[in-house]
């Protein structure tokens, strides 16, 4: 079966983003970018399914300008077989991202689509679920275990109260949580090999979808600063402060 893995280029998770002085957005100029960590987990899971002889082909897809080819090459170096870039300079709302991905699903007919549960820039946590709805597929979000069982996939999900396991009829959508796997490092030979793997570019405008923005970003501001605290010298001092100054314990 084919596995489709949509991925996103985002700020590196170690970088603390700054807000632009004019409050129009965050400042991404000269900031280190990387594959979204949850997307990397998605690629790893797909590659493991291929190594287990379950997946026949792993296709990575990303929506963005030319720079997202870098992340597609990362996915290829991790073991994806081919890549598709849907080219656009716009930053699209999730519903429009999901509609573009729906077209790729219609073209490729994957049995499984694995996405990250959220991207660490917009923190929306919605594209996978939207794609599932648009394609009429079942969904297993926040997955910490995935196992294919005939025409079904069992997905164990990280939920507020613990873990929940669902059986989903294929084709299905899975979104990854942190503990699904630990992605491998791409080896140098695989990075070289990835350069020769197929990567096709399609223009977002050619899909015949109305990609009009659904949101208007009015402003972006830095979060409220916490006022500086103090270092206490002892447990006695800590307890005294919590009782008498902060008044949070009695």
């Amino acid at each position: 079966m084919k596995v489709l893995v949509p991925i996103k280029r985002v700020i590196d998770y170690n970088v603390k983003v700054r807000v632009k002085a004019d409050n129009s957005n965050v400042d991404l100029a000269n900031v280190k970018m990387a594959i979204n960590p949850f997307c990397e987990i998605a690629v790893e899971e797909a590659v493991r399914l291929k190594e287990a002889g379950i997946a026949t082909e792993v296709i990575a897809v990303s929506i963005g300008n030319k720079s997202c080819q870098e992340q597609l090459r990362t996915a290829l170096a991790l073991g994806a077989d081919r890549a598709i870039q849907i080219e656009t300079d716009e930053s699209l709302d999730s519903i429009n991202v999901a509609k573009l991905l729906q077209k790729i699903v219609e073209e490729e007919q994957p049995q499984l689509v694995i996405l990250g549960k959220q991207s660490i820039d917009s923190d929306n946590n919605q594209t996978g679920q939207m794609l599932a709805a648009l394609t009429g597929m079942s969904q297993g979000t926040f997955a910490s275990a995935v196992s294919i069982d005939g025409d079904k996939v069992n997905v164990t999900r990280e939920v507020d109260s613990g873990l929940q396991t669902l059986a989903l009829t294929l084709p299905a959508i899975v979104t990854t949580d942190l503990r699904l796997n630990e992605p491998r490092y791409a080896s140098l030979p695989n990075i070289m090999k990835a350069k020769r793997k197929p990567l096709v570019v399609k223009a977002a405008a050619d899909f015949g979808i109305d990609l009009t923005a659904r949101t208007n970003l009015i402003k972006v501001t830095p979060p409220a600063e916490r006022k500086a605290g103090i270092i206490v010298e002892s447990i006695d001092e800590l307890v005294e402060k919590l009782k008498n100054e902060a008044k949070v314990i009695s």
Partner: protein
Amino acid sequence: MSILVFAEHDNSELKADTLKTVAAAQAIGGDIHLLVAGHNCQAIAEAASKVNGVSKVLVADNAAYEHQLAENVSLLVTELAADYSHIMATALTTGKNFMPRVAALLDVTQISDIIAVESSDTFVRPIYAGNAIATVQSLDSKKVITVRSTGFDAVATDGNAEIIALDKVTDAGISSYVSEQLSVSERPELGAASVIISGGRGMQNGENFKLLDGIADKLGAAIGASRAAVDAGFVPNDMQVGQTGKIVAPDLYIAVGISGAIQHLAGMKDSKVIVAINKDAEAPIFQVADYGLVADLFDALPELESKL
């Protein structure tokens, strides 16, 4: 305007977060209805009818909704949506799971995790792990919104809404519940606790988390953890606090053996008072702590327990 709010529950208890999501709905303004979707959930309906500011409680009590499968609940909510300008749910794992499906079925984008309401179409939400705060206007005709409960104060529960049973059943038939492994604890839930004590990688193993128990007992606290502590298997996943775990804002948050990575801070830096205990004076957690103690946690925790 009329607003449909999804009641967060587990068929046995209406979660207090619902009261905060209703507060967010009140900030938008309009007639507010609560939807209770579940199975054998009459007690939830009763509790929901007491929530202030709610005029009607719609109850969909059917086996198809027992586990609140996204495929089934999203069909139900989408059918009901015709009568509402806003559809809202708490940004917990149930709402996060089915709400974007509703949005897609209605052909709108979702505004996730709002922490404030500016107007009926403009909302405030954290992005980039809370390192930036965005004010976003929704241009869609219907608004599908999830609410971060730490942004709102709970409404009271002395109301008296009308309860209406729905007989609609929407079963997509493409997913089914297999099993669950629930964490059982006598302690308050992380989202509801006024005091939280969390352990990180510095705790070294799961056994050492017992050092937090006595303190949690004395303070009536919930126990949380960093991602590193969960990944290492010290404690279960539902204890993870952070950008991609639970978002909390208690009166007192005590971080023990936690370095203070941005992803952890994203989940707790709106706490009223933060205490950090770490042996590394340079740890970034001290930058957000009101009270920092540079100490070995294996000395500090027993002493703290004895002095409370």
